[in-house]
């Protein structure tokens, strides 16, 4: 919300300097988003009249204008197009100080100019059209200080009738962020009151016009449900036709970012809302059937044309203001089109009411209309304010049109609200804050907020009507801290020591991340929200996916079911930026729709593409990454985990190529898959080269293995022999169909075998078609002795026999 310093000062006896306010606001929890000067210190500008306009002899776009200030006539050069003889305009004499600086005598295209006709901007007014000069109200007194026309009348002291005008310029504009608990501060009046309560300043109540108590009843008011509308104040005034918004009011509204219409009956509502915080509405009495006001829930099928001309179908039960026949306003949200005031309006019914927060919020949401009024009602208004606001409006109208008459003052207020009584135990307040404030200190704060608080213990604190946020002792503790400043809370603790633990999932995830990063993979983050085309591209089933009801756009419409599409996007992004090698991984959540809601799963997935390691070296050594490269990475990642092994998949894993995929198992459970990414998915994702290798690990399975006993999670050391080992190579020819893993498993039963390495796989010249040559290196080691040649020989013979018998292998000559 915007706050004008000058307006705030209307309600503070001795206001603090503007420079101190941001700090004071922040200390109370009112966020200051911006603070800046508005306007400028303008002097020497008077009301002048244009008497004559001639063309400039040397310039087509300039005019020579005779301006009179009542005492003398001066000739000035003017470039504006909107000038006309007889206009009253702000005239700056030579020597005047304008927003841009001092005005000096100048020759413009050979003609001396004895002053300047000003635009609103040059006068330091904000929010005006600055394309031409500012045209003043014809009633402005010639020769008077032009800037003073835009300064609001000083609050009249009661009894005094003189309305002095004060010029407090330059002004300041503060943009405040007001959280819902402080919504009682949504006006200049309320904010000034808050500053006064918390900083011990003297508050100045607005001066309100006394309204005649004996006024009759022109339009009877009825409220069907006082719970939805606990108070409805109505004032009827007549004889207001043509009431115009004074310049000072328009200037303030403009500075607030509002757009005054010039019709006082419209603008005054906004003005009083910004001033007091009470939303009000003026109905044109002539267009109220009856005339009569009924505050009631709408019935089935009712509709209303809103102020902005849009026909609203009202959901049954929407709280409306109706006349005898139809709804004329959406209560607390927006007025109706037909009953709105116009330039020809003579009589108005001023509504100043209190509506239930939930009722206004519901109508605002259902109708899709958000207004400054609904914003305030949703957050709760002060029920004591309705009559004040009605009197303030009446006063402003009477000031503009002294001949207007007040025909009705009614106040439907069947039952004042019951306010909570909070036991204000100072010990409890200190316990909450961890402070040791004296009773006096705490009482001073409570008393500032509720001057009627009795010092007799136990303190029974009844919040003032505007502080509906105070409900319990915690709220009072916050007030005590705000009153004394949050710095009062010490940094001191006697918190007991507690054991801290992580979760198996978090630990498994952290370990996996660390290992992958150490092996050359970079971690990436992709969005959980994905477009439909991700599913189509990667041949995933979108019917399993959770769709958002209110996505930001179709690019972020679904929750992802796999990390693959995001990783392919990352790959493409980096290839497009000149990279040739990409090894990335992501740990994230994937989502699936289930019968009774949704299932979330943590997954770690990654892909590798291009040379690995990516840096080229003068000695070479970089190779294109392939299946075995990724398999090696997985071996390293799972290294040392009990029960880890690769298996052939029973079904083709989704988005992996048939025959180029393996399943990773941990004990009985499946830990993940790896293989060549489905070339279709890769091509669909706008990538040319399909040599993309992908892995996916289900973190819950990994976490499951973390849950086992501590002993299972830590690798156990086996002793090694202190005697020399002996190795021997063996080259055999085997059929292509024979798989290495089977042979390896079989050979591991050889006694004293310490290692078995497959050191060469060869096909080609010298090897029959359909076969391959494998060179195996056996390393034997015994715990209690050196292996002799005879030991090794007998074992190698066994090895060869096993290979011949089980796998049809032949020794290669």
């Amino acid at each position, binding site marked *: 919300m915007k706050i004008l310093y000058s307006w705030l000062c209307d309600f503070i006896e001795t206001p603090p300097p503007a*420079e101190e306010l941001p700090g004071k*606001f*922040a200390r*109370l*929890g009112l*966020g200051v988003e911006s*603070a*800046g*000067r508005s306007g400028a210190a303008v002097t020497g500008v008077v009301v002048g009249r244009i008497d004559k306009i001639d063309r400039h002899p040397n310039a087509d776009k300039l005019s020579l204008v005779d301006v009179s200030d009542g005492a003398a006539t001066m000739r000035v050069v003017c470039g504006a197009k909107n000038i006309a003889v007889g206009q009253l305009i702000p005239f700056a004499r030579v020597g005047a100080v304008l927003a841009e600086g001092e005005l000096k005598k100048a020759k413009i295209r050979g003609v001396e100019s004895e002053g300047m006709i000003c635009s609103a901007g040059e006068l330091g007014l904000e929010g005006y059209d600055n394309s031409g000069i500012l045209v003043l109200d014809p009633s402005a007194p010639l020769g008077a200080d032009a800037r003073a026309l835009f300064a609001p009348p000083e609050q009249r002291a009661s009894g005094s009738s003189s309305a002095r005008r004060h010029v407090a310029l330059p002004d300041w504009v503060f943009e405040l962020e007001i*959280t*819902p*608990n*402080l*919504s009682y501060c949504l006006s200049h009046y309320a904010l000034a009151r808050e500053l006064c309560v918390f900083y011990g300043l003297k508050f100045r109540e607005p001066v309100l016009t006394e309204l005649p108590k004996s006024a009759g009843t022109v339009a009877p008011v009825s409220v069907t449900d006082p719970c939805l509308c606990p108070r409805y104040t109505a004032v009827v005034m007549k004889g207001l036709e043509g009431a115009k918004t004074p310049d000072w009011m328009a200037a303030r509204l403009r500075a607030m970012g509002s757009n005054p219409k010039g019709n006082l009956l419209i603008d005054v509502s906004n003005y009083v809302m910004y001033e007091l915080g009470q939303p009000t509405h003026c109905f044109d009495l002539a267009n109220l059937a009856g005339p009569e006001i009924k505050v009631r829930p709408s019935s089935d099928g009712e509709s209303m044309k809103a102020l902005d001309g849009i026909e609203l179908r009202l959901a049954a039960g929407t709280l409306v203001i109706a006349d005898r026949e139809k709804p004329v306003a959406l209560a607390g949200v927006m007025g109706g089109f037909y009953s709105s005031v116009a330039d020809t309006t003579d009589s108005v019914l001023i509504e100043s009411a209190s509506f239930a*927060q939930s009722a206004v919020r*519901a109508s605002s949401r259902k109708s899709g209309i958000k207004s400054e009024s609904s914003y305030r009602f949703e957050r709760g208004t002060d029920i004591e304010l309705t009559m004040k606001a009605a009197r303030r409006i009446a006063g402003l109208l009477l000031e503009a049109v002294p001949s207007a008459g007040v025909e009705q003052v009614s106040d439907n207020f069947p039952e004042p609200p019951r306010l909570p009584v909070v036991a204000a135990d100072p010990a409890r307040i200190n316990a909450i804050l*961890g402070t040791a404030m004296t009773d006096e200190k705490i009482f001073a704060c409570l008393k500032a907020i509720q001057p009627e608080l009795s010092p007799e213990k136990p303190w029974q604190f009844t919040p003032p009507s505007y502080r509906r946020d105070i409900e319990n002792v*915690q709220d009072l*503790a*916050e007030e005590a801290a705000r009153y004394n400043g949050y710095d009062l809370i*010490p*940094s*001191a603790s006697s*918190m007991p020591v*507690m*054991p*801290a*633990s*992580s979760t198996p999932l978090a630990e498994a995830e952290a370990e996996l991340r660390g290992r992958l*990063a150490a*092996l*050359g*993979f970079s*971690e*990436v*983050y*992709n*969005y959980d929200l994905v477009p439909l085309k991700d599913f189509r591209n990667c041949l995933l089933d979108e019917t399993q996916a*959770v*769709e*958002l*009801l*209110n*996505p*930001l756009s179709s690019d972020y419409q679904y*929750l992802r079911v796999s990390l693959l599409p995001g990783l392919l996007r990352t790959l493409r*992004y980096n290839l497009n930026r000149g990279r040739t090698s990409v090894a990335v991984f992501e740990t994230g*959540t994937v*989502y699936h729709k289930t019968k009774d*809601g*949704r299932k979330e799963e943590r997954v770690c997935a990654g892909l590798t593409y291009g040379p690995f*390691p990516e*840096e080229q*070296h*003068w000695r*070479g*050594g970089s190779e294109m990454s392939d299946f075995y490269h990724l398999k090696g990475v997985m071996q390293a990642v799972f290294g040392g985990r009990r029960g880890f092994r690769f298996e052939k998949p029973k079904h083709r894993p989704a988005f992996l190529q048939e025959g180029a995929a393996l399943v990773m198992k941990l004990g009985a459970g499946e830990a993940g898959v790896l293989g060549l990414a489905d070339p279709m998915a890769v091509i669909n994702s706008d990538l040319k080269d399909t040599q993309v290798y992908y892995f996916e690990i289900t973190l819950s399975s990994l976490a499951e293995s973390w849950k086992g006993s501590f002993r299972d999670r830590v690798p156990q050391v086996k002793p090694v022999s202190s005697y020399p080992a*002996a190795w*021997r190579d063996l080259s055999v020819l085997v059929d292509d169909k024979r798989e290495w893993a089977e042979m390896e498993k079989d050979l591991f039963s050889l006694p004293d075998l310490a290692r078995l390495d497959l050191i060469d796989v060869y096909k080609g010249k010298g090897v029959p078609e359909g076969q391959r040559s494998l060179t195996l290196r056996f*390393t034997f080691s015994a715990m209690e002795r050196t292996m002799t040649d005879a030991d090794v020989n007998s074992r190698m013979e066994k090895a060869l026999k096993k290979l011949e018998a089980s796998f049809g292998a032949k020794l290669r000559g």
Partner: protein
Amino acid sequence: MNASEWKEKLSRVGESFSSAISGAASDNIAEVELQFLGRKGELALLLRDLGSFTIEEKKELGRLGNELKGRLVAALEAKKAELAARRACGTDSGKSRPDPAGRSAPGTDSGKSRPDPAGGGAKASAGLDLTLSGRPFPKGSLHPITQAMDRVTASLMKLGFSVAEGPHVEEDHFNFEALNFPADHPARDMQDTFYAGVKDASGKDMLLRTHTSPVQIRSMKGAALPLRIISPGRVFRSEAVDASHSFVFHQVEGLYVDRSVSMADLRWTLDAFIKDLFGSSARVRFAPTYFPFVEPGAQVEISCVFCGGTSHSSVHLGPQSGCSGKSERCPICKGTGWLEMLGAGMVHPNVLKACGHDPEKWSGFAFGAGVERFAMLLFGIKDMRMFYENDLRVWKQL
């Protein structure tokens, strides 16, 4: 002697060469060469024995013998080059001694590894260009948010906070209702919410959690107290993406519930936490603010970790105010000396009640921090969007 015995001898030659060469120095390198590779050296004698084998055996064994010879020659040359380099650097005493690092020449490590065919050692001469780049090893990286999150989590675990987790697609009850955001409360407007096309058990639309606070409820509900947890994780808000906003971001939530917990405990905890993260000179200050699930609520600022919080003007008045006009303003804290880091407060009695705990008996504090902000400060990242672009030119720097 049969073929395998010959092989065994050959491998012994390799082994004894390897121990001899590793201890060799410039004064005895020639002896080593003579002993193994000389005309009457061990290898030559062994090769002479091949005469008694069959043609096939000769072929195989001869090949093995020649391979070993190649390795020995290469290793010897490497050693010579090494000694020459040492001499050039003045580190060679000229005396033979066991290699302190236990290094061995290539190709002789119990016969298992093979010489690097591109072995630089063999080709290197006394004029080694030591400025050539070393062998590259694959370098990966952890995402900056992971790194920031890990630091935050580690810090808080030292203070006795255990990690707790919760789902991303959440029930209205946990995300709002139980956290004292009643339906139709304007506080709900503070968090623009994504709704998911699935319903919870009570038939309400589920939503993407807008904060990590629902984990408070999930952890507290029906749980034994006291409780001290943190909940790191991803959250979602329906906001347009720009340099400082993202519809996906990360938070860490902290919660402590016990008998007679006070706001002084909260301040002490955050003080200790911030000092652990940013060093002992970091300070913390509180200002009032509002979150429905705490009362009193506090906004927590830390002294600027970049300028050391040297500027103390409490709130800055913008460029027109004339404050600190010409002095260099810290671009991170904008000259205020303070950085907004966390939201915090005392657990609202309604939240305790919603979890089945008596607010007259139990009290607690809660706090939450955005991890992106922390990561941005930590790594100098200026734009939120970078976190999800995954440009490896950037990530590889981490």
